């Protein structure tokens, strides 16, 4: 009973601080757990989707997004090791009546029956599955589109529309995925893909090892197609989202870290306040060990409370995210999946333990300090807290800083910037460890101010900087974390703006892309655009997906009007450029992502599967592309058309005649291409859309920044309170020698401001250093995007000023509280 009362009693005395500590830990846990839950739901659903699509197949043949020649199907079907085979035409069909696209599977039901029974439609009339105008939907798709059997559903095919009658639902196994099944012949004809397939699923005769089958047929497959066992798809998807997840998880750890820091300052304060109480306990026979355990028990309760609250908050957040944004966390990876939240008890336990561990670590130092105090001394009021009194040696801090810098130059581990994160942690810890030294050096150089109370304050800090170090640590941590993320986000956003400016030089954009695979501008539509009155010049952008590596998602092959002598006019190049010689393979400019993932270097000649053949291309340069996360290869559009045999394009940029009115051109355009499915935007509108997407994606980082700042301030106020409380005797003495209350308050406010200024200054410098790691190491290694450093000076200045003001205010408030009551009596506490 007694220990419980001793733990819970003090906790209840300081409700606000308790609440803040719990909240900080809860936020860290909530973020981490929510990311875990959302991702788990997504992966489970994705795994199921892969399974239904592959069914009982042992191997899947895949190819470029726009498909491969269907003659591969009979060739494989006649192989002796093939027991069953199912050809498929799979694509995203753009919806005609609304934005978005639906995953469409063109199936041969007779073949699918033996391989993917879960995909078979359940028609009322058996013949419906062979009708060209009939479609079957999964339950998720039917709900999403709010259609029922009997309704009509229209899709965009090229610039025209094709209509289907919904004839029924698919088997329950597909319920969670948005997909539709139509007859394979209808898919080929009505979506203009005659002669094309996109995947073939194979079941082998039992006893034939998968490996052997793979080896046997790997040689026979045309360029651009490849074999894969269904389970590898799932694994590669999990790997793809990993960088994104790890980034969010590190943000969660940052929140946990600041939470631990807050527990540290709160416990430090609490220990100072209860010094006499704790000493009494020692006198009553509680051992040092017992005291440490008691204080750690308090921390454990805080950690557990925060952890439980965080788990609850995390589950709710995950549910909301899944419902409102879908399981892809805004990364656009799992389109058309409807994931169900599944509570994950093991992860919950791990996160709960993490919360408790953070709180325990935070309170370890105060607890040890309290236990170290001599009870006989401490039971008397007024003994100084020994906390952080000793000036620690400089070498651990310096070592951590140098290791931190070294960590920043190490490469990624398994595609993750692990050393980058270690580097950031070491930079932060090293700086905090060095702070006492740094403070002593910097404060020692300050001239003594003229006003006596300020001079007193400075003298106090110069002589005994130790007690202020807790405040300094929390302010440095909060400011540096917030500043580094702010600089990174600002750099990214500005780089994105500059990039958008560069890639959107035309006056008007006509787009069919970004909504599945089925929208495009035919050669005739392109000519109509060229002939529009008021249009001076038209440039086209063509694209298709190709697969460079079976283990990775497809990259985008792009075609655009390129000038090999000046590719920088169209692309934002990030390195040297080569102009291929006359007889060299045609030039390809690769995006940074493609260059990083596939190891392409300028000047290399690489083999790329285009149009069913391996084509040699000269890497002529590397360019920055923020649009395609999986990588992009840019060809001159003439080469693109020649190599792919595809004369359709996805987008067009229009330059208007001087004096031509935009709305007139848009009207003429709508008249020339009356079919729906076109988006016409000005570059400004496109920029706006892109930046809105960016801001939405980074909303979670803004929220975390705010949390970091709040926690920093809370830590600051707690440590100031501890500081002033431990100096009540000193204040009483000052009052005795004639210093008035207001002067003491001013002295404390001055000290607080000075400490804060120091903390904010160091925090900003450290933040800048950490932002370099974020930009050039962590982001580059996670997403393969480079960006230029832009420092948001105004924002940082405002932030610093606000931090300073808040810190000064918090110091003043704690001073006021410390000076309340009879301070003069405090002197007498020292019998």
């Amino acid at each position, binding site marked *: 009973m007694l220990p419980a009362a001793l733990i819970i009693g003090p906790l209840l005395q300081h409700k606000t601080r308790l609440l803040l500590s719990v909240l900080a830990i809860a936020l860290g846990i909530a973020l981490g757990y929510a990311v875990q839950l959302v991702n788990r739901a997504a992966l489970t659903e994705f795994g199921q989707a892969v399974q239904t699509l592959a069914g009982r197949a042992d191997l899947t043949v895949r190819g470029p997004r726009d498909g491969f020649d*269907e003659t591969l199907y009979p060739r494989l079907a006649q192989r002796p090791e093939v027991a069953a085979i199912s050809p498929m035409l799979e694509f995203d069909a753009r919806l005609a009546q609304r934005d978005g696209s639906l995953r469409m599977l063109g199936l041969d039901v*007779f073949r699918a029956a033996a391989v993917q029974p879960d995909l078979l439609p359940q028609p009322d009339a058996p*013949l419906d599955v062979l009708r060209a105008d009939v479609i079957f939907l999964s339950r998720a798709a039917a709900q999403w589109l709010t259609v029922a059997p009997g309704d009509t559903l229209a899709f965009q095919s090229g610039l025209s529309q094709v209509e289907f009658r919904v004839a029924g639902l698919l088997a329950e196994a597909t319920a969670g995925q948005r997909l539709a099944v139509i*007859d*394979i*012949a209808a898919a080929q004809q009505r979506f203009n893909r005659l*002669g094309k397939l996109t995947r073939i699923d194979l079941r082998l005769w039992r006893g034939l090892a998968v490996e052997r089958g793979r080896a046997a047929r790997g040689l026979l497959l045309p360029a651009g197609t490849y074999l894969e066992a269904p389970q590898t798809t799932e694994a590669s998807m999990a790997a793809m989202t990993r960088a994104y997840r790890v980034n969010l998880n590190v943000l969660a750890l940052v929140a946990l870290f600041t939470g631990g820091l807050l527990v540290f300052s709160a416990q430090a304060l609490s220990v100072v306040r209860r010094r006499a109480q704790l000493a009494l306990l020692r006198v009553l026979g509680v051992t040092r060990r017992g005291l440490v355990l008691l204080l750690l028990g308090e921390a454990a309760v805080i950690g557990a409370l925060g952890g439980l609250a965080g788990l609850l908050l995390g589950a709710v957040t995950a549910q909301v995210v899944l419902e409102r944004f879908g399981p892809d966390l805004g990364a656009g990876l799992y389109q058309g999946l409807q994931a169900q939240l599944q509570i994950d008890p093991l992860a919950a336990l791990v996160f709960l333990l993490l919360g408790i561990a953070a709180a325990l670590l935070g309170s370890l130092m105060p607890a040890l300090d309290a236990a170290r105090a001599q009870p006989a001394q401490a039971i008397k009021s007024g003994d100084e807290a020994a906390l952080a009194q000793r000036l620690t040696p400089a070498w651990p801090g310096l070592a951590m800083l140098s290791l931190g810098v070294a960590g920043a130059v190490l490469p990624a581990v398994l595609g993750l910037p692990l050393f980058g994160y270690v580097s950031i942690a070491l930079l932060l810890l090293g700086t905090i460890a060095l702070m006492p030294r740094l403070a002593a050096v910097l404060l020692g150089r300050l001239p003594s101010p003229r006003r006596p109370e300020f001079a007193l304050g400075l003298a106090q800090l110069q002589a005994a900087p130790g007690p202020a170090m807790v405040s300094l640590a929390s302010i440095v941590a909060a400011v540096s974390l917030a500043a580094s993320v702010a600089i990174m986000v600002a750099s990214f956003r500005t780089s994105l703006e500059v990039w958008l400016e560069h890639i959107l030089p035309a006056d008007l954009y006509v787009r069919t892309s970004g909504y599945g695979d089925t929208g495009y501008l035919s050669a005739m539509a392109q000519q109509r655009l060229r002939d529009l009155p008021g249009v001076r010049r038209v440039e086209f952008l063509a694209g298709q997906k190709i697969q460079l590596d079976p283990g990775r998602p497809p990259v985008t092959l792009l075609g655009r009007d390129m000038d090999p002598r000046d590719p920088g006019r169209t692309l934002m190049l990030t390195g040297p450029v080569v102009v291929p010689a006359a007889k060299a393979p045609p030039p390809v400019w690769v995006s940074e992502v493609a260059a990083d993932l596939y190891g392409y270097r300028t000047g290399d000649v690489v083999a790329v599967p285009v149009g069913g053949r391996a084509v040699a291309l000269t890497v002529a340069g590397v360019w920055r592309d923020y649009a395609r996360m999986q990588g992009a290869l840019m060809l001159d559009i003439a080469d693109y058309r020649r190599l792919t045999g595809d004369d359709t394009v996805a987008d067009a940029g229009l330059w208007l005649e001087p004096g031509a009115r935009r709305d007139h051109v848009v009207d003429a355009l709508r008249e020339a291409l009356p079919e729906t499915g076109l988006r016409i935007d000005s570059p400004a509108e496109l920029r706006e859309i892109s930046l809105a997407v960016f801001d939405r994606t980074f909303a979670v980082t803004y929220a975390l920044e705010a949390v970091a700042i709040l926690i920093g301030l809370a830590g600051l106020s707690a440590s100031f309170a501890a500081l002033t409380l431990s100096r009540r005797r000193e204040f009483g003495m000052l009052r005795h020698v004639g210093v008035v209350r207001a002067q003491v308050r001013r002295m404390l406010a001055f000290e607080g401001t000075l400490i804060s200024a120091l903390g904010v200054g160091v925090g900003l410098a450290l933040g800048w250093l950490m932002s370099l790691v974020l930009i050039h190491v962590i982001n580059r290694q996670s997403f393969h995007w480079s960006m230029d450093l832009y420092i948001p000076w105004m924002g940082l200045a405002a932030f610093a000023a606000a931090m300073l003001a808040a810190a000064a205010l918090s110091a003043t408030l704690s001073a006021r509280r410390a000076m309340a009551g009879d301070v003069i009596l405090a002197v007498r506490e020292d019998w």
Partner: protein
Amino acid sequence: MNARREARSASREMERAAWRTWLGVLPAALLGVASAWAVDEAAYPQVSRGTVLEFPRDHGAHPGYRTEWWYITAWVTDGDGVERGVQVTFFRSRTGLQEDNPSQFAPTQLLFAHAAIADASRGALLHDQRAARAGFGLAGARSDDTAVRIDDWTLARDGGGYRAHIRARTFALSLRFAPAGPLWLQGENGFSRKGPKPEQASHYYSHPRLVVEGEIELEGRRLAVRGEAWLDHEWSSEYLAPEASGWDWFGVRFDDGGAMMAFRIRARDGGVFWAGGGYRDARGRRRAFEPRGVAVAQLRR
């Protein structure tokens, strides 16, 4: 003595017929499916009285008609004297769908196949079936002579006889069939009525006696077998009238070389919708049965 042997033979023939009826249950259901796989709106040609069947062309498929099948039943004995019933059927169905679609996958012609081995002494029936749309050389039926396939399931005419290869999940067949006599045009010179209306008819001929030789693979054992078989080839655009629910079919080979075929089409209301058949004696003289000339009575339950 002689009479008893006849009787035993007759009873054995009846037993065989019963087996064939049993074997017929599954493919009959399949034929029901096959005829369901066709639309009503397409313009199907009608079979007409007086059409002279020409061979080998009419051994081949007639893709314009809605339904067609090649139907083999055999009775084979292995080296140990164990007798088994064997059945191999290929159906072709013209769906009337997507006929203007240039896609190679256009489901205009579908193929269904059914194969079974029945072991009367053990009461075991092994069977398997396949279905596919015609195309890519993987599944289809040639029009010039019998050559029909779904993947590695094939039935083809070969040097006056037939060859069938079936690789099913639990068994395999590789059989050669040699005709022991001329083919038998059913009904009026191959025009077989299936209902009161003139269009309710099929073209129909049989090989009532084919000498079978070949191999079956069963439970991992390869067995050399010999025996006799019956083949029907029939095509029509209107085999089953809407009022009809199904049919029973009997084929009886007599030891003297004669053969009898009889069928009755059951009405949905439980009665008999239509019946027919014929008898061909050992010297090849044919006689067709009138609908009222066929009666079926169940002797044993």
